[in-house]
């Protein structure tokens, strides 16, 4: 067979065009991963290696970054360090090699915990509210349905800073500034719109016949909702939850304006990881790596539903 007579199907591109397309896409993918890979490497560099010129690809890996992230260190005289008992942890060892001692834990862990609590708390609430509202919008005749749905979506489009001015005043007045519950409430309000729109799409896809059969069998509406609809919508609920989780995890504008200590999440904290003379890049890189890794996992989990999520459920495939 020669290629001249073997005309390929239009739907199925030819082998050569496939491999050219493939290699271009792979090149783009690798280039776009380079910054992330670089941050991952930097987390294992010593501070001098991290700012070496030319940039070092091959270096001696150290735990400086991760130790700098989880502990605060202070400079001491070599005599003082020599007088100490032998180091008990790897971070002790790393610090003493640079004439430093570990002074105590850093604020990173509490900030990370705040991120977790606020992200999971607001996700649970927004999915709960979302699944209820979505079910009602999907199954019942609600007066002004389209307007209500548009209203719900439009709240997500508001510029965060514009919302933050009055929320800042309101929270100060209610005593909710810099509290986890305040942040959970705020993120729930932002996420509930996405949650309603996405879940409505998922529930629309469940045939009504299942519920109707259950109603005939003597279930009440609420029982049918709980025992028929919820299990059927499980995949959709999980996908929606992951989207809410990612938003709350990544959010910065509200976090930086409304929290300062107690309830501060990780994104506003990372830029303030300071070492001697400016940002401590290995520690910042370590924090960034730890912060981004969960997202990588979620992206893989979500890949089939990503399109739905980013278009509020409008594009399904």
């Amino acid at each position, binding site marked *: 067979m020669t290629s001249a007579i073997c005309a390929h199907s*239009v739907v199925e591109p030819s082998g050569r065009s*496939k*491999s050219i397309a*493939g290699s271009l*896409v792979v090149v*783009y*993918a690798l280039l*776009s*991963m*380079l*910054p*992330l890979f670089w941050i991952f490497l930097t987390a294992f560099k010593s501070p001098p290696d991290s*700012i*070496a*010129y030319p*940039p070092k690809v091959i270096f001696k890996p150290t735990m400086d970054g991760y130790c700098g992230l989880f502990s605060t260190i202070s400079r001491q005289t070599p005599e003082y360090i020599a007088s100490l008992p032998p180091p008990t942890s790897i971070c002790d060892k790393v610090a003493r090699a640079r004439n430093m001692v570990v002074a105590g834990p850093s604020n990173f862990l509490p900030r990370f915990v705040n991120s977790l609590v606020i992200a999971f708390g607001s996700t649970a609430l927004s999915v709960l*509210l*979302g699944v*209820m*509202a979505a079910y*009602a*919008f999907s199954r*019942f005749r609600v007066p002004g349905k389209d307007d209500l749905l*548009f209203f719900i*979506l439009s*709240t997500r*489009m*508001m*510029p965060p*800073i*514009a*919302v933050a*001015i*009055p929320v800042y*005043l*309101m929270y100060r007045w209610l005593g909710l500034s810099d509290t986890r519950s305040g942040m959970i409430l705020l993120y*729930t309000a932002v996420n*509930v719109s996405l949650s309603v729109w996405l879940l409505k799409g998922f529930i629309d896809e469940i045939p009504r016949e299942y519920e109707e059969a259950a109603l005939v069998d003597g279930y*009440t*509406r*609420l029982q049918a*909702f709980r025992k028929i609809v919820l299990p059927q919508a499980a995949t959709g609920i999980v996908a929606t939850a992951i989207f809410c989780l990612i938003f709350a995890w*990544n959010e*910065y*504008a509200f976090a*930086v304006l409304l929290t300062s200590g107690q309830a501060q999440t990780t*994104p506003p904290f*990372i*830029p303030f990881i300071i070492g001697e003379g400016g*940002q401590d890049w290995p520690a910042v*890189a370590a924090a960034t790596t730890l912060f*981004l890794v969960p*997202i*990588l996992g979620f*992206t893989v989990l979500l*890949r089939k539903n990503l*399109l739905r999520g980013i*278009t509020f459920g409008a*594009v399904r*495939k």
Partner: protein
Amino acid sequence: MSETTVPLTIAEHAARATPDAVARQVRGLSDRAIAWLFISPTILLLLAINIFPLVWTVRLSFTNFRANRPNAKILGVGIDNYVSVLTDPDVWAAMQSTAHFLFWTILLQTALGFALAWLVDRRFKSHGFWTTVILVPMMLSPAVVGNFWTFLYQPQIGLWNYAVQFLTGIPAASFSMIGSVKLARWAIVVVDTWMWTPYVMLICLAGLRSIPGYIYEAAEVDRASPWRQFWTITVPMALPFIMLAVLFRGIENFKMFDMVNLLTNGGPGSTTEVASITLKREAFEKWRTGYSSAFAIILFVTVFGLANIYVKALNRVKSR
């Protein structure tokens, strides 16, 4: 009135005495009641956290209130705040920065995103895996991304400057993406494009895949050249999807705050001060609450208008 005076029957007494939970078990709630019971918590939350503050902002925008002086006398100033926002050269400079940012990010992302989607649609081996890899940047926190790009943009030691030196021979120490008045605007465009091209790609890909194969087969029968097929079938049929992506990126980038705040914080000077950064400065650094409320309302009305068009576009795509 009359209902309360009529003596209750025994059955009515029993009905009233039955705890709600039991009554629901027996009768089940009416559909109408369930609908409102299920929708109202969401609406109440949005009213409390979004609408009430919004109304408050509108009220503040007509006053000279300053949040750092809660005890000062609040005076109504009419529409003065709106007038001064709209005549403020700083605001127009911010609008210009925003326009530059919007124009270039959308142009680059649409071009790159569509090209990538078209390539992925060739369905080469393991295209699913590579698509997922490409999608990663858009899932990340814009703030954290902005922060680590300041590291990549460091003069001399940054990976970006080194790559530029490697490719073009311009010495890595001779320029600073963030520090230079000329380059800073492009620094934010590059990062945003890196981050959001995958988004446009994903939506374009859905558009390309929604085109039925038989149209191409018919075109092939008619001996239409691939070039002609591309411009008369592929582009027009994917257009609603492209528009959707463009609109959404437009809305998001019009509000852009987190990435730019951490990458350049509006600097150097105010070259990259996009609208949200100006708003933050006025509201939380200069504490001109009344003035910034007026600015916030103006931004909000703009976004609301865009959102309206966006939802219409969503519905059009949905009916495909």
